[in-house]
């Protein structure tokens, strides 16, 4: 044993050297430096630059003319932008009021004691989320075709809708098709969060509630909902932010266009078209900042209403 002691002390001796102390002190700075350098270059600079750009009219990256607030004035008077905001808002509405309740309902069922094969079911519900929006877009553009498409065949079989229903070329049906597709993609995804939250709720609380004579309905409101609230608010805010960034799904499903009568035009699609198809990066920045502010206001509003404002940290 004595030899090992000396060994350690020999090894330990040089560790008080200046190099060792220095590397210990500098380590955290070195470790975060890649993040900080990249963030300064590709985060801070673009943020400042895009604020500036939003006051310019540009033609590609090379030319820029200062126009003051004209971009914003034009944006708010552009009927195309109104259309994009409306479509995006409608999509977000269905995401919050149809998709999230479905996710929660599914999670509640899956969390009940009765269910067999919970892991496998969870896997099945979650699986569509593995497919990127582009691939889902290509797949569903074929599933939605009139006559032969699987959606029409299925809905004709169960609900008797005509098989020649033109989901993607009838302006009135574009949004329902998008909502259906996103339900398929995201119901299971959000369910995973709800399920994890439900499983983390303290079981003793249910027992206490049962002792106090609370029925299942009361338990849901008094125990379950408060228990999953932080996660529910997180899911609500994230899925709203996600909805407002909708682009790829309609862009691909509608064959690189805004669709009939621009029924699938979203805010980000509008940004992409003005900035990178027309080539006005200044105007694209204006659209971007308007989107960011809108999303921020809505997120804060949601956190306020759900009462997560003060408790946001936990």
């Amino acid at each position, binding site marked *: 044993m004595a030899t090992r002691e000396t060994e350690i002390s020999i090894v330990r001796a040089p560790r008080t050297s200046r190099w060792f102390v220095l590397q210990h002190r500098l380590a955290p700075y070195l470790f975060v430096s890649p*993040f900080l350098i990249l963030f300064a270059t590709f985060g801070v600079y673009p943020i400042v630059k895009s604020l500036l750009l939003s006051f310019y009219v540009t033609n590609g990256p090379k030319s820029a003319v200062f126009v003051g607030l004209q971009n914003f004035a034009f944006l708010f008077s552009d009927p195309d932008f109104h259309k994009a905001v409306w479509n995006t808002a409608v999509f977000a509405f269905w995401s919050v009021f149809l998709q999230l309740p479905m996710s929660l309902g599914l999670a509640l069922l899956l969390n009940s004691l009765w269910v067999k094969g919970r892991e496998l079911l969870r896997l099945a519900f979650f699986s569509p989320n593995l497919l990127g929006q582009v691939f889902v877009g290509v797949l569903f553009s074929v599933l939605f075709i009139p006559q032969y498409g699987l959606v029409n065949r299925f809905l004709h079989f169960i609900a008797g809708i005509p098989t020649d229903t033109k989901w993607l070329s009838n302006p009135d049906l574009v949004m329902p098709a998008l909502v259906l597709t996103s339900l398929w993609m995201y119901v299971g995804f959000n369910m995973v969060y709800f399920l994890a939250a439900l499983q*983390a709720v303290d079981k003793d609380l249910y027992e206490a509630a049962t002792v106090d004579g609370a029925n299942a309905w009361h338990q849901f409101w008094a125990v379950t909902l408060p228990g999953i609230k932080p996660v529910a608010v997180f899911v609500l805010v994230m899925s709203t932010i996600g909805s407002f960034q909708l682009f790829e799904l309609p862009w691909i499903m509608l064959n690189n266009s805004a669709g009939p009568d621009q029924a699938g035009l979203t805010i980000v699609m509008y940004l992409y078209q003005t900035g990178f198809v027309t080539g006005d990066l200044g105007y694209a920045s204006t659209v971007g900042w308007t989107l960011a502010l809108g999303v921020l206001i809505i997120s804060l509003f949601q956190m306020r209403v759900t009462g997560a404002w003060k408790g946001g940290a936990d």
Partner: protein
Amino acid sequence: MKLFYRVLRVLVNLFLLAFAALTLTPMVWLVAATLKSPDDLFHYTFFAPRLSTFNFRDLFNTVPFHRYMINSTFVATTMVIVQLFFSSLAGFALAKYDFKGKKAIMILMLSTMMLPGQVLMAPLYELIYRMGLVDSYAGLIIPGAVSVFGIFLFRQSILQVPDELLHAARIDGCSEFRIYWDIVMPISRPMIGAFCLISFMGTWNSFLWPQIILHNTDRFTLPIALNQLVGLYQQQYGTLMAGTFLSVLPVIVLFMLLQKEFIAGLTAGAVKG
């Protein structure tokens, strides 16, 4: 009452099974569609009695699809490695050290997570253009080399590593980087699995930024290549479905391998908060 519950139990299980079947149907249809000849495609709803490899042959004959698969694999793998290294390193620093500016960095990170990425698209493109990185993988990878989400994820999991372990290593003369490399990373194995999959999926499926940055079709990744294919061969549904199938297959295989870690990692930040 007992009978009522028994019936309810059967109904709940049946409902969940039906819902799962409905969820899986489009994917089953996709697989079936790739294996049908053009004549059979809409003749049979799902699988045809005679399987055909026509769609795959057609796909590789009409476009260099293997090229796109290699491109996507290269870009996604590089991105995963770079993001994994930088994010876990920063996550380690934020979890286990006290240093000046730590709070500011955390606030900075949280606020960027609230900002939709599209806001920065225009100036970022301008910057990449000035750096001469348009139409290069560097322009694709470098701006996304650090994942803020990843830093949070790793900070969260590294917080659980006992400090005594790190102190003991220091006494034994480990440098800080060796501590990260030999102790912290091996312990974080589950989180590494989860993050690799999340990062891989993000890059593999990403469309908008590659679409803006890449011009030369030889460099196309799968999402933009497939999108182009839709424009070119709009009516050849079978070929398109074969392309779609091959595009989603790698992610599904990877998911099967890392499933447990993935769900844990996905919900870690939200549930433990």
